[in-house]
């Protein structure tokens, strides 16, 4: 009878026929941060060199390499010897997404402001000019920010890894997913880029996914909806001269000869830039909604489309004839795995395949491009061909420099690792 008593007491103590289910989940979510516009004024400072954490865009200027640490600042690297690049300093710039350099003046975005910085001494960089209220919103790494001109407050979002425990319905009505708290989340690989050709003078090289580019004395910046033109004849005093409305989803800008190629997620816009102060739209080459870096060489435009959060499209590379700029037409499409940034120089095409590695192609014959080498086991999203034998590639693991004089056998010169 004692046993029975124990049995019943156990049952009654635990008596409840309601299921008890808890879910412990770890996820990344956006947390809003507010920044007063006045805080931006003296926010730019030069610091000691730091480790790469989340590198996005790269920019090459003379012997310097500038690596953008999204919204945090810029790494300035002395690359006179590509086999052993040397970190010089870290430039702390809140809200920086893009950069361009001309004549030792570095132009960056500082949330709403366009800032000109003198980098003749990379160890102590000074602010020489600032144009306020140029940008109202922006998006990078899938996170948007916006400026409220009335309250003069910038609302940005920060990705945070959160672990929380909630009670669930025991799988009764499917899985319960976490909720995101504002800020837009899109494809992280938005910020891939590759190398443009054709910029002359002493300006540097950015990527095909760059939103800033310099042509002659003008700086072009694309926001999500506009093409903004700045006169930078006097480097210290950048002057906004024109704004061209373009519609939503603008991603990249790429100068070629006296033309501007603007990539949006629905097509490629071609602008005539013979009057640099007021570019005029010539044509649009439309394609499926996709993320699409674009590069141009020898009157052929190379556009990669990939599936991602910017749209559902097949993974492919299109080669487009742009000899007649007012009516571009497709030459051929090639199937790819997950193409990101690309770069073309002297018919040597280098293409980043995201987690599938890096590919080099011979594109002398656009109807029949030939795969030269496929480096697997690396993550590649951004590539710049600096000259005939020097390739910069950035991925999640760091910045790689290759000697690509033989496109069938790339030689790794150096690697700047990302510290996690």
């Amino acid at each position, binding site marked *: 009878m004692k*046993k*029975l008593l*124990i*049995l019943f007491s*156990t*049952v009654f103590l*635990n*008596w*409840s*026929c*309601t*299921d*008890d*289910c*808890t*879910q*412990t*989940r*770890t*996820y*990344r*979510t956006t*947390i*809003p*941060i*507010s920044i007063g516009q006045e805080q931006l004024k003296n926010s730019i400072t030069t610091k000691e060199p730091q480790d790469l954490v989340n590198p996005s865009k790269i920019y090459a200027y003379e012997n310097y390499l500038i690596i953008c640490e999204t919204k945090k600042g810029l790494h300035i690297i002395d690359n006179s010897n590509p086999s052993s690049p040397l970190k010089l300093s870290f430039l702390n710039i809140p809200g920086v997404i893009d950069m361009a350099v001309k004549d030792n003046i570095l132009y960056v975005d500082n949330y709403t402001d366009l800032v000109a910085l003198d980098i003749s001494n990379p160890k102590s960089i000074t602010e020489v000019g600032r144009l306020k209220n140029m940008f109202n919103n922006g998006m990078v790494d899938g996170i948007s920010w916006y400026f409220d001109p009335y309250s003069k407050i910038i609302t940005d979002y920060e990705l*945070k*890894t*959160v672990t*929380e425990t*909630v*009670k*669930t*319905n*025991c*799988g*009764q*009505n499917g*899985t319960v*997913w*976490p*909720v*995101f*708290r*504002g800020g837009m*989340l899109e494809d*992280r690989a938005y910020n891939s880029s590759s190398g443009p050709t054709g910029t002359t003078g002493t300006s540097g090289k950015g990527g095909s996914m760059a939103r800033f580019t310099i042509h002659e004395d003008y700086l072009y910046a694309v926001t999500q909806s506009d093409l903004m033109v700045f006169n930078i004849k006097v480097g210290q005093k950048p002057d906004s001269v024109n704004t061209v409305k373009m519609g939503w989803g603008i991603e990249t800008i790429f100068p070629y000869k006296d033309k501007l190629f603007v990539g949006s997620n629905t097509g490629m816009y071609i602008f005539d830039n013979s009057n640099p102060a007021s570019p005029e739209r010539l044509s649009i080459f439309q394609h499926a909604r996709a993320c699409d870096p674009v590069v141009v060489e020898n009157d052929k435009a190379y556009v990669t489309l990939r599936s991602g959060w910017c749209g559902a499209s097949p993974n492919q590379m299109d080669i487009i004839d742009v000899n007649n700029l007012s009516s571009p037409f497709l030459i051929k499409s090639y199937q790819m795995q997950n193409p990101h940034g690309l770069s073309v120089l002297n018919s040597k095409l280098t293409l980043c395949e995201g987690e599938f590695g890096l590919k080099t192609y011979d594109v002398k014959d656009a109807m029949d491009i030939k795969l030269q080498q496929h480096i697997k086991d690396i993550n590649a999203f951004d590539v710049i061909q600096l000259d005939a034998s020097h390739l910069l590639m950035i991925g999640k693991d760091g910045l790689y420099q290759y000697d690509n004089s033989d496109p069938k056998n790339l030689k790794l010169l150096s690697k700047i690792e990302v510290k996690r």
Partner: protein
Amino acid sequence: MKKIIPILLILSIFSFQKTEAQTKKLFKYPFVNQTEFGVLFGRNKETYYYYPYYSSVYYPPSSNGFNIQNVASLSLQTFNGFQVRKKTSIGITTGLDAYNSVLIVPIAAGFRHVLFEKNEKGAKLQTGLDAGFGIANNANSNENAKGGILLNPAVGFKFPTKNGSSWLVNFGYKYQFIEITQNYSDDYNISTVETRNLKRFSVKVGFEF
């Protein structure tokens, strides 16, 4: 509960010792099979959460009311063992429990004891306890299910028939632990582990021979 497990252990050790020492005596204990089919009734609570949106600090979601609904799942079980005493049987219980999205195969040590009987041919009051482990089978493609401890005490009636078999009606309580891990992850969803403590009232009918 803590006291029952040692008792069960002692009983089983005792029976095994006997079998080792005197193999012939094993068959002195009559074989018992109790096969039952029934329904596990439970209640399910769906809690709604409020996520504070516009805040620069992370706050965990706070509860914002709940919905309760009844759930029922099918259960099949078979107890196979030996009648070690006149009123007591010890054996192994296995079967199938079809919980929501997860199918469990229980493997448990079982114990059956007749508490009360007026006479040998009349109805008897029987109690039983099954304690063990449930092996989970995956159901959803994005989930990995892992079973866990199960405990199933029951009380019921045994109605003997003329040929020595009996009909069974049992009422019990079934506890089952399941752990579900999402095997889907990307840049934003890193890991998700759900622990389910399923507590059900069981009603089973069956047959013993």
